[in-house]
């Protein structure tokens, strides 16, 4: 294909009233664009302000926190708040302890739910069987059951099986509650792998195991990445189960529970609270920005479609 050079408008330049009209239109278009861009900035400011305010507060010394005129940017930025969070001056445990708990629970739960979810997604995406539709509808409903209701019953069961105050208990719950969405999203990816590819490989003598490893898995893996991002964010952010199951033992706390506990225990030291919240939030947001292209499609596919 040869590229066509883009020249200016081929319409001959008019004169007099025609020119004035065109100028007016151009001005209108320019001002419309300015207004739209200003509105866009306003929306971005509304969306970003709380997060930016959190970060800025985390760097403020106490004298600035309670000054009569709050400044958006700290006048005398300090790392003292972060030092308090890392040294654990409030709960007696460092931030690293809670980060370790959170990462352990989240990573294991995501791995388990991805593995179990992948098997189910292959069944739902690549097979026709009797209860397929019923199963999908059930998943959709299960996904929306209120967790603060189920937690009462789970608490009683977990107490019986000694799973309270234990990270293993949390892993089990997070795996289960990440599954419906994981299966729903992965199923679409599994369904899009063309059957011809598998058939061609079968004719070439590839067994089911080879076909799974060489064809199905590589083609589903982008989907696996985006579903694990969702599962990761769910498990890393989860609060209700952590609050109920890890009631008393601060050593076992995950990050969201730590931030809430820190706030509840010490609700005047806003600098340190915002520092702990920043350390908890920024990894999620960074993760989101890095993977957002995948997520945008996953959001639409996984959420609007179920």
């Amino acid at each position, binding site marked *: 294909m040869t590229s066509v050079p883009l020249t200016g408008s081929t319409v001959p330049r008019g004169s007099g009233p025609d020119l004035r009209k065109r100028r007016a239109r151009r001005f209108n278009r320019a001002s419309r664009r300015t207004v739209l861009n200003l509105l866009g900035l306003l929306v971005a400011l509304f969306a970003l302000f709380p997060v930016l305010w959190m970060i800025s507060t985390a760097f403020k010394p106490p004298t600035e926190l309670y000054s009569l005129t709050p400044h958006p940017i700290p006048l005398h930025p300090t790392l003292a708040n972060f030092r308090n969070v890392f040294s654990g001056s409030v709960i007696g445990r460092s931030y690293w302890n809670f980060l370790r708990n959170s990462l352990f629970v989240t990573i294991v739960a995501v791995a388990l739910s991805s593995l179990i979810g992948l098997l189910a997604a292959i069944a739902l995406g690549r097979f026709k069987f009797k209860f397929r539709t019923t199963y999908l*509808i059930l998943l959709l409903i299960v996904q929306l059951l*209120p967790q*603060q209701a189920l937690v009462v019953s789970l608490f009683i069961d977990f107490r019986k099986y000694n799973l309270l105050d234990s990270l293993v208990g949390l892993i089990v719950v997070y795996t289960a509650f990440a599954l419906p969405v994981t299966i729903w999203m992965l199923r679409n990816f599994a369904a899009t792998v063309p059957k011809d590819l598998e058939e061609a490989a079968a004719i070439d003598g590839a*067994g089911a*195991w080879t*076909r799974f490893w060489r064809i199905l898995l590589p083609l589903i893996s982008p989907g696996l990445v985006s579903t694990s991002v969702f599962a990761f964010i769910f498990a890393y952010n989860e609060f209700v189960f952590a609050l109920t199951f890890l009631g008393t033992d601060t050593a076992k706390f995950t990050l969201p529970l730590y931030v809430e506990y820190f706030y509840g225990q010490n609700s005047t030291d806003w600098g340190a609270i915002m520092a702990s919240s920043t350390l908890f939030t920024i990894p999620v947001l960074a993760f989101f920005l890095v993977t957002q292209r995948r997520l945008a499609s996953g*959001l639409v596919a996984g959420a609007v479609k179920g």
Partner: protein
Amino acid sequence: MVTSSHNRPGSPSSPAGSTLPPEPRGPRNPTGRSVPPTPASLGLSFRQRVGIWIKKRGAGPYLLLLPATAVIAALILYPAVQIGLFSFQNYGLMQISGVLPTQWIGWANYSQILHDHEFWVSLKISLYFALVVVPLTMIVGTLVGLLLERLGPKMRTFVSMSAILAWATPAVSASVIFAWLVSPDGGVVDWALTKVPSWLGGGAHWAGFSWTNAPLPAYTVLTVMLVWTGFPFIAVTVLAGLRTLPSELHEAARVDGAGPWRDFWKVTFPLLRPIFLVLALLSTIWDFGMFTQAYIINGQLGNPDQYNLGLYEYAQAFTQPPHYGLASAAAFVLTIILLIVTVGYVRAAIKQGALA
């Protein structure tokens, strides 16, 4: 060897496999005469025989679904059923510690919560909250979606990324941040309100105003927070929907003299109605069932006047002394209300082709 390697236990079978010659059934193939002897029928290992059985019975998908079904049944469905059972029992401190056995007490838990003033207050709070927040989030989200469609590509990316960050902020962080924004000492909201001219409702009386100690101010904060969290998802989804609409429709409407208002209501809205319905129902489920944000902004379980239905139910079980039976009854009510909305949502989602 090639045919038999198709049939490993737990691996997906394919249509290609079904065109292969039928495999002998049973371990020893006693009726050997009816089946032509294939290389695979001789010296089959146990694994291969299991694989053949799976394929013949079409059991592959069920085996693949087994682990997920077991986990979901044990940790989501069974607890849901158990809530129903507990709601008819006198499950409390004595029962959970094993001092006394549980007894079936019929509808007593339900009649107790239905006669509890706090239950009705919490139900009303949940209802009003959803009635305010859902439309507000939908309006803000749709307007932002329409705005995003009209922006240039760079600006659109910037604005939608900023919005997505608000959506991605964990509920715990958002709650703690908003608690700080509205804090009576040093909070930026009270400071800003003192600077607002008095004819707009601002003034010095806002200095040190406490937002979280009474239901109305607390739920005002929660309203702003949930709109802030919820609008990006709606904006991004509406934008995706808008992009599927052919531009000729808008042009035709413009030629016929329709302004942007009529264009939206006569062209865009009817075509995107299924998406709006799904979004509205999802938002209702989220906002009616809000827990984490309400728990943190209302100061944990300290103030029963400020409970929504989720907090009310949770408090029955997790404030001393615990009443798991009462909590289960309230949880059951909450679950049923949400299930009704969920059924509407599932129907709307299916109509939109969710199962395709």
